[in-house]
């Protein structure tokens, strides 16, 4: 009888220990990654799904710093799947909307205007091409190098560079557009568009 599901070729106790190290080292980063990309209730699911994959495929997880990039790659797919599932359901409802959380967590001393700006820039990001937006997030929020972004997304470093350039440009353009729409609509409800 199999005691439990576990990665093939790894003894149970060693697997547990390896997993514990991986988990302690990277749980916070993976949770932040998911927190940045999916709505509240889905965060824990995405984190668990990512670590569950790591547990099942412990033999494949590289050692050292590469492990985090590996986990990001898994998380990228897990989150992507959540998005597609959500988008599919919403298409059925006749509504298509991104799942990216649009409500930034406010700093204790952040002004109302500052929070509005953050909300606006997050909304602007929803207009970007999916991969461009992910490049932007990985650089701005996960603080990854272009080479690491390329590794996570499985694309060439040059392509990352081009996408980042395009993403920054389009983000700013969309931001300005939303901003001008907001300022030209004085009666707009708090919270902005849509």
């Amino acid at each position, binding site marked *: *009888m*199999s*005691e*439990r*599901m576990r990665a093939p070729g790894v003894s149970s106790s060693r697997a*547990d220990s390896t*997993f*514990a190290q991986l*988990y*302690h080292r990277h*749980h916070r980063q993976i*949770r*932040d990654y998911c*927190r*940045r990309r999916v709505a509240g209730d889905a965060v824990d*699911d995405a984190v*668990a*799904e990512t*670590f*569950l*994959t790591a*547990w*099942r*495929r412990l033999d*494949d997880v*590289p050692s050292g710093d590469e492990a985090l990039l*590996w986990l990001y*790659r*898994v998380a990228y*797919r897990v989150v992507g*799947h959540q998005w*597609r*599932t959500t988008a599919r359901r919403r298409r059925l409802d006749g509504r298509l909307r991104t799942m990216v*959380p649009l*409500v*930034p*967590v406010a*700093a*204790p001393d952040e002004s109302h205007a*500052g929070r509005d*700006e*953050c*909300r606006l*820039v*997050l909304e*602007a*990001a929803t207009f970007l091409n999916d991969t461009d937006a992910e490049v*932007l997030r990985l650089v*701005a*929020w996960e603080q990854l190098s272009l080479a690491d972004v390329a*590794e996570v997304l*499985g*694309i060439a470093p040059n392509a990352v560079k081009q996408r980042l350039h395009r993403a*920054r*440009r389009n*983000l*700013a353009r969309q*931001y*300005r557009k939303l*901003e001008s729409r907001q300022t030209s609509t004085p009666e707009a409800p708090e919270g902005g568009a849509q």
Partner: protein
Amino acid sequence: MITDDDVMRLFERADPARYDRATSVPDATGYLDALRTRSIDMTITQTTPLPTEPKRPPRWPILLAAAAVVSIVVGALVFATRDDVADPVTPAAPSVAPLPPVTASPTEVATAYLDAIGNHDVDLATSHLSDGALTRLGGPDELRRQLEWARATGFEMLVTSCEPATSSPTGVTPVTCAYDFNGIRSNEIGLGPFGGSTYRFTIQDGKVISLSDSIETGSNGFSTQVWEPFAEWVALTHPDDVAIMYNDSSRSDYLVTDESIRLWEQRTHEYVEHVLGGTATTTP
């Protein structure tokens, strides 16, 4: 006017996780236990070597990944008990599986559920599910549609083993069932069954409280031998059907509607004829 750099700085500041530091990190051992028993009703875990591969082939990648994953519930499966394994292609007998008694073991509950699913008996299958598990599967209507799609495409699950893990003090027992499968009528064209997939249950008080399916479609050749050739054939011979049958242009995910199910059934039968027709001249 605000510059591109200013907007980028704003974006960095808007990080939704920036001030979310209150959540404590659960103990690894406890988390691992929770993972083993957690509720995930649809696991699209790609067991093909993606995270270790720098780049992946672009085509229907990861296959139908989701596709055959028979999404939520694995489709029309034929549950073969361990005694049946020697003849894995033989469908199980028509459903007579009774509800497990209250004292049914976790393994019996899991196998009873799979048996019901294999016989497309939605009512019996749902009777083994907790309310939460049924909800996460999308409810009985979604389950019914998935099973109908699976039936229409000749999807069969051939369970090779079901083994329980150690129960937790709370009475929660994970059960893992390994299975092979046929899809897109692969057995009718002499391919499959395709191995390497697992179904994981969590059983409590005689009910399935969570289940997940991790279907292998890459390393076992299902994607390249069955899914992709069929999708290409559909695109070539019935291009108007693609938008009805598939959810995406890469044809890696399928649509489940009344119309699509009818087409899936029709086209998979035609595909079998097409494939067999190609060899009919040499087969008496």
